[in-house]
């Protein structure tokens, strides 16, 4: 039994905003005060401290094939960013792409206890699960890329949406995935021909289907399967001056179905005279505000080192050509692709300045904090270790204005940001960093402190400097065990892999087997993730 008493509790899911409450924990779960056995409990006196649920990251690239390629190809990222082994913990290295144990430690030391890996190719899902086993401290799920999947596109072409639905359910089971991820629908397949898509009604070469059909079909399938998280969309035209328009069109195409649009900052640009894109945060935010079926995360850029890595093959090639930086590409048979390019965001760069303010404008213009969640699309827009800085930018308009003044003047021109005086409250931060992502993910036991929730709890000192406050939690508790004290890891614990297991008609397997025989280089019988791959696991029920 553990009691965290006298703390100022911020638990938006249960309507608690800064009231002094005691939180009681037994067997890794939060229990009601009635069930508390005060005499036998270990007590943490949180008087004057802020108590929240453990942080939940809805979109981060931390494990699996693409991340590991980035680790391998960026030794320069790791020098000087090392951690020594201790009797309790493993050593590690890396800044934008830390090694697995270090990733778990760094997230925990930031008060985060749940993280979603944003993109896993089905063929490479085993790799993701192997790394998850070596990533302690965090409960994690993997989003499975399906936006360029041949089997799904063939079903759409042949007018067989039920068959596509059974396949998607089978695929989530086979890969032990958590959600349907869509990355540049159709564009990644076209990249295998050296092309891309630019409009929702462009044709995917060889399939005669369109990005619009892929997105709407998968959105419907996610609802029909009652998946806890809807489609998770990285739309077409990322980074281009047409992105805001096609983002809004994609939202409209959902016709009220649920959808999560990730790292929206990268997809909120319009055209203006000259070489710079224009921030279309106002228009995109208006579309989000008008569509209650939509959640988004920001993908806020942070000045400094980053590593771009997406399943968006043509995008990554474009970044390589634009920056001249080294480039990894990986086309994955019948499914998806991807690439990696290192990047450095700089205040003196006008393009980066526009990106920076676009992210903040979105966060400040979207009214409902439950639907605009905090991410840096780690490590694409910056590493997650910088979340406290982003929090301070949202909470402190003086700090925001001061940083804005340091940006490239060309990038500041015409900015709406200086007129946005909104400041996030502590409760708003609790929403965008835990309660909101947990709700969007359909994780009923995460992101709140009510009875029955997982005992993942973070205690912060209530400091005026919000960056310092959120950078160094006083306590982090995972599954009811104190794992971090004063911002430093004190105990390692394994995390769990979260996955879904939607039902499907077993007859689909014969078709999929034939698809494998024709198109894959591994046997159908060797494709599925073996349960031994992840002894630490928890199935999340479909709704």
């Amino acid at each position, binding site marked *: 039994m553990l009691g965290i008493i006298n703390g100022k509790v911020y638990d938006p899911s249960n309507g608690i905003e800064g009231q002094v409450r005691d939180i009681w924990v037994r067997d890794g779960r939060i229990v009601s005060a009635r069930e508390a056995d005060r005499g036998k409990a270990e007590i943490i006196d949180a008087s004057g401290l802020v108590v929240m649920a453990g942080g939940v990251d809805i979109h981060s690239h931390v494990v699996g094939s693409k991340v590991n390629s980035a680790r391998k190809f960026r030794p320069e*990222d790791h020098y000087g960013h*090392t951690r020594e082994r201790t009797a309790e913990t493993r050593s590690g*290295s890396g800044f934008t792409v830390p090694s697995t144990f270090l990733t778990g430690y760094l997230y925990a030391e930031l008060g985060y206890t749940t993280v979603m890996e944003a993109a896993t190719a089905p063929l490479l899902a085993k790799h993701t699960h192997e790394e998850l086993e070596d990533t302690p401290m965090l409960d994690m799920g993997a989003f499975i890329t399906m936006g360029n999947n041949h089997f799904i596109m063939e079903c759409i072409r042949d007018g067989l949406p039920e068959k596509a639905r059974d396949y998607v359910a089978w695929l989530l089971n086979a890969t032990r995935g958590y959600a349907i991820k869509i990355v540049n629908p159709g564009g990644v397949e076209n990249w*295998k021909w050296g092309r891309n898509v630019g409009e929702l009604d462009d044709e995917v070469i060889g399939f005669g289907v369109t990005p619009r059909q892929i997105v709407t079909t998968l959105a419907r399938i996610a609802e029909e399967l009652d998946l806890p998280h809807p489609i998770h969309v990285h739309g077409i035209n990322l980074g281009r001056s047409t992105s805001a328009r096609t983002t809004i069109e994609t939202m409209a195409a959902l016709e009220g179905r649920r959808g999560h649009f990730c790292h929206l900052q990268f997809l909120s640009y319009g055209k203006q005279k000259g070489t710079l894109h224009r921030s279309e945060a106002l228009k995109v935010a208006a579309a989000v505000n008008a569509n209650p079926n939509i959640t988004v995360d920001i993908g806020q850029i942070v000045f400094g080192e980053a590593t771009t890595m997406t399943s968006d093959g043509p995008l990554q090639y474009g970044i390589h050509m634009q920056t001249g930086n080294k*480039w990894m*590409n990986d086309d*994955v048979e019948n499914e998806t692709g991807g690439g990696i390019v290192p990047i450095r965001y700089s205040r003196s760069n006008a393009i980066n300045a526009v990106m920076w303010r676009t992210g903040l404008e979105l966060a400040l213009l979207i009214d409902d904090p439950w639907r605009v969640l905090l991410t840096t699309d780690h490590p694409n827009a910056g590493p997650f270790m910088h979340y406290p800085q982003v929090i301070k930018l949202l909470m402190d308009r003086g700090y925001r204005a001061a940083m804005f003044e340091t940006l490239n003047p060309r990038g500041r021109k015409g900015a709406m940001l200086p007129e946005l005086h909104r400041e996030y409250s502590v409760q708003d931060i609790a929403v965008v960093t835990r309660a909101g992502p947990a709700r969007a993910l359909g994780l009923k036991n995460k992101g709140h402190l009510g009875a029955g929730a997982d005992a993942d709890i973070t205690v912060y000192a209530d400091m005026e400097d919000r960056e310092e406050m959120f950078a160094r939690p006083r306590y982090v508790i995972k599954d009811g065990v104190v794992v971090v004290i004063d911002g430093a890891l004190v105990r390692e614990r394994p995390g769990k892999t979260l996955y879904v297991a939607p039902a499907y008609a077993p007859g689909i397997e014969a078709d999929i087997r034939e698809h494998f025989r024709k198109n894959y*280089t591994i046997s159908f019988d060797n494709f599925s993730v073996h349960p031994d*791959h992840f002894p630490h696991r928890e199935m999340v029920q479909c709704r």
Partner: protein
Amino acid sequence: MKRVVENVTCTFCGCLCDDIIVEVEDNRISRVRKACANGRGVFLDYDPTPGKPVIDGREAEWEDAIAEAAKVLARADSPLIYGLSSSACEAQRKAIALADLIGAIVDTTSSVCHGPTGLAMQAVGEPTSSLGEIRNRADLLIFWGCNPAAAHLRHFERYSLNAEGTLVPNGRRDRTMIVFDVRPTATSKAADEFFQVLPDGDFEVLAVLRALVQGKRIGLDSVGGIPLERLRDLTGRMKKCRYGVFFMGMGLTMSRARDLNVRELFSLTAQLNEFTRFTVMPMRGHGNVAGADQVLTWLSGYPFAVSFARGYPQYGPGEFSAVDVLVREEADAALILASDPAAHFPRAAAMQLKRIPTIVIDPMLNLTAETAHVYFPTCCYGVDAEGVSYRMDNVPIRLRGALPTVRPTDESILDSIIEAVKRC
């Protein structure tokens, strides 16, 4: 009683063919179907009869051998852990955990094989693909300094030259094959066109190809023994193909200029994407050498030549690579996992291995094991134990164990050593 096991994966080479059918009789594999000549030996030559560990040439009890190995490693000032690439990822993960615990230097067979490929990738990147993309799309195949017709016997059939794919339904007839090498090989005999490069001339040929792709004027009649006109003609065809692939091997990584050769090739591949799609595939040798790169990278940040001596991972090809550490007589104890460096290393390095206490974990009593201080006869992943391995294109495959696991696994031995070291 005969039992048939299907979809078995062969671990001989980086192709990891996963369509093998084996027949089991009296707890031995009696017949293997679909495997190549190299692969059949993996199944047929292995004797799964349990053996006993050996200390200094004498049979010993398991617990005594574990205790002795732990004592040697715990007392060493600069232990080396080497090999890894013929074991499964489960064991590789334990080997790195042990290295972290005792502050060892870890190196894999990559360092004497495709290590320079890794350095090139770190310098300029690597546009690559899974093997299925090559099977389904590639119409231009260029093999450079590699000889799959001898080393990766089913590569042509399953992944490249002869494979029938969605956009190349007629297999061989829909593809053009070109070979660059310093001598004619079994592979070059299968090619439509062979470019014989002068020994150590690869860098120059690659540099000129890059210049030609960029449309630069070259004031030479020939380069690396090849007439310029032939190279110019080739660049034209490279730009016009639908999906081109370079396959590269140790002819580039282990000849003069090493990683610089590979850098040129990877840069050329990237450049060609301005005109069409082009990727490159390193032809990895050992069954799970790609997995060794992967595991060491996710645990330390680096793919080979890593030292944990300072308590955190440091990267140092040339400094922490096994051959160098041995030749400089820095390592004072070694643990060799699933590898035979005594048979493959330069003499000075192999001699040093004999002088220091060496622990070998391997299914076979190989040359290194014969002179080891402690030898553990373990099971063979993919034959009598399950485990994960990564194909040359980094696709992970779960190995089946056709035979029951009777011998201890590499993983369990390493686990026992870790526990014993903690008690030392």
